[in-house]
């Protein structure tokens, strides 16, 4: 699709009047991008295009949800708010099948009665956004990291207190939350608020040795699925027998790895390729290594894109699993090479951290 076509499409989304319209646009685009993924070997521009579409769809759905909320008699937002995407949305790496990982932050209100009203408003808005996006075809986040959950829809001071608590108590779960925040990307709403909220914890995370160590453990939890003989470690049993878990055995380990390196270097980029590029720029990754890493990541990104399909219900669903038997020889070889690169990077990080923190 040419830039002009894409721009027109994005405008169309902006002007869509109903959720049904959005859904229709999404379906058409999904079909088109899905076909593109099958034919295009360089996946990065396709992913960028797809994510631009996702972003536009979600933004429009939020606007429509605001209007719906107003029609329900709750008027306009009493204070500015900002809507964030986490997870693959935050990283700009959404696949054809993406769920909603989201958070909402809004301005503080001194008066307790008004604060309560605001909480009620944003609670209703959050629920409306989630319901709208479900109608457009985005299933809710299974881990309940979503704006309809009051824990993830808070005024800024409450957010700051919450994040401070996570820092003070780096339990496994709290560290997981902090890692989720690290991928947060401001998608809609007030810029100033968004900046303040992100500024609160970005750059602060790795200064705590405790947190850094726990993050490392969390980050290295998913191992790259390649064996000592260079064989793919596929699932042995069940309905996915013979499949390689591209998501958790290739893609996520790389995401985790570069998130951690980026956080340590105070890099604000949230996309994995953006992080690799930034790490190269400041010299933490050599030219060669950065190129290798980016190449490997693109291989995973492409296969991960290919692993999402329509399920029986006609919804887009990503199993994240791929049958290597279905891959041709010309695809299997790069996959194995990329997995070996991923494994090497993971081991390097592990070793380096071991030196820093000592063995476990």
């Amino acid at each position, binding site marked *: 699709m040419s830039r002009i076509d894409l721009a027109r499409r994005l405008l169309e989304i902006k002007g869509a009047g109903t959720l049904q319209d959005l859904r229709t646009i999404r379906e058409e685009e999904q079909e088109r991008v899905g076909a593109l993924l099958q034919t295009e070997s360089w996946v990065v521009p396709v992913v960028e295009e797809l994510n631009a579409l996702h972003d536009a769809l979600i933004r429009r759905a939020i606007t429509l949800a605001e209007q719906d909320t107003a029609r329900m008699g709750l008027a306009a937002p009493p204070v500015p708010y900002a809507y964030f995407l986490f997870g693959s949305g935050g990283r700009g790496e959404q696949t054809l099948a993406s769920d909603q990982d989201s958070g909402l932050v809004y301005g503080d209100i001194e008066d307790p009665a008004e604060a309560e009203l605001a909480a009620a408003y944003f609670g209703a808005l959050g629920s409306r956004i989630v319901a709208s996006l479900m109608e457009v075809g985005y299933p809710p986040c299974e881990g309940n990291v979503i704006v309809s959950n009051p824990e993830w829809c808070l005024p800024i001071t409450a957010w700051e207190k919450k994040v401070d608590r996570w820092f003070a108590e780096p339990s496994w779960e709290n560290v997981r939350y902090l890692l989720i925040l690290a991928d947060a990307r401001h998608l809609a709403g007030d810029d100033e608020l968004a900046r303040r909220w992100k500024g609160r914890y970005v750059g602060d995370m790795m200064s705590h040795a405790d947190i850094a160590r726990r993050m490392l453990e969390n980050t290295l939890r998913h*191992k790259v699925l390649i*064996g*000592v*003989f260079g*064989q793919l470690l596929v699932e042995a*049993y*069940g*309905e996915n*027998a*013979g499949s390689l878990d591209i998501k958790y055995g290739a893609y996520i380990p790389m995401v985790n790895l570069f998130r951690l390196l980026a956080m340590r270097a105070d890099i604000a980029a949230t996309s994995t390729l953006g992080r690799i590029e930034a790490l190269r720029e400041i010299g933490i990754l050599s030219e060669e290594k950065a190129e290798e890493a980016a190449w490997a990541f693109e291989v995973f990104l492409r296969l991960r894109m290919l692993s999402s399909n329509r399920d029986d219900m006609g919804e887009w669903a990503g199993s994240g699993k791929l049958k290597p038997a279905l891959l041709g020889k010309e695809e299997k070889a790069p996959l194995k090479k990329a997995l070996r690169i991923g494994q090497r990077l993971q081991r390097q990080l592990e070793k380096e951290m071991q030196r820093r923190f000592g063995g476990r």
Partner: protein
Amino acid sequence: MLKKSLLGLGALLLLFPTMAFAADGDPSAATLNMGLNALWILVAAVLVLLMQGGFILLETGSTRMKNAGHVAGKTIFTVGLASLVYWAVGYGITFGGDASEGLNKFMGLGNFFFDPSIVAGEGDAYPSTIFFIFQLAFAAVSLSIAWGGFAERAKLSVYLIFTIVFAAVIYPIIAHWIWGGGWLAADGAQDYAGSTVVHLTGAMAAFAATILLKPRIGKFNKDGSANEILGHNQVFTSLSVLLLWVGWFGFNAGSAVSVGEGFFGYVAFTTQLGAAGGAVSALLISWLVKGKADIPTMLNGALAGLVAITASCAFVEPWAAVVIGLVAGVLVFLSAQFFEKIRVDDPISAMSVHGAAGVWGTLANGLFATEKLVEQVGVGKAGLFYGGGGEQLWVQFLSVVVCGAFAFAASFIVLWVIKQVSGLRVTEEQEIIGLDLSEHGTYGYPEALKRAGTNATTL
């Protein structure tokens, strides 16, 4: 203290005046020898019988809760039944000396409803009573191996009928061929404690059963991929391997059936090395290939090492025992994957542990048997790597093929007939509810499974 001892001695002298003149009635060296043999063989027999405890835990631990009582209990029942049948018929077919020379090549006759002399006869190396118990324990082990192929789906009545045929005919004929003076014994087939006779025979019966019974509900998907049906207690399974491992000293070292100059110690020694090799290599290979070190594979590896060294424990050098165990551990891992690939459901891995490793152990003699040890045991010739050429390897190969084929064919025919007459498998409903309830009326774990029917399917 001294006073008391003297007093005791005096009392004993009064009671047993002959003790004072013991010098006259000194037991002969032969009697002492016999006594020592008897003691050791009986201890060994008890160890082998105790291996049933291992089989109970192995089979129960590797299967699901809803079948636990059935799986465990039927082992005791079939040991009981097999004992009666073996006493009445099986022992006579293995060791009876009344058959004509021609028939004796195939089976023995005589000694049915075995009625032994109450003490060892003049010149006997051990009492026949003890030899009988030792042999019976072996037959029972072979039978319990076969049950692996029946697990979680065969009807109780099938266990009953198959026990009778197996303990009366199938096992005794093969045992006669190699140990009872049959045609393979004449050929010099080396199977010290029964890699072929006991393990391969049991495994072949399991194979026949699992083919005729078909896989358990839910084991394979329509597209041919397998599901993992996890055993309900890995601690049981681990303990079972320890029990079997210890019992194996009776199995192998007991097969010396003499104390003599202590050769049974060497047998015990190689046995330990073989088992150790199997456990180590199986864990490592599963770790390397699958990325996760699999506990059940490691346990099967230990057993495979034991099964393999069973034939060769008296014929090979220590280093060869280690190699035999190491290879067995890798083999059991590959074999289990192979059977799953061809969609054979083997819940306890009986075919891999006892079949594949049994074949390997028997063949290993043809490679590693040494001149010196062959002379010591007095069966067959040295193996390929010790200057014996391929002759012994051929004999070993022949005994594996013939015994394996006979055990498989005989078991298959018996089970096929049962299948036509009364059916082998419980109904789908019964299988889902569990055999504890369908065959026995109560659960092995009543508290855990009280809400039967509502959630039993998920267990």
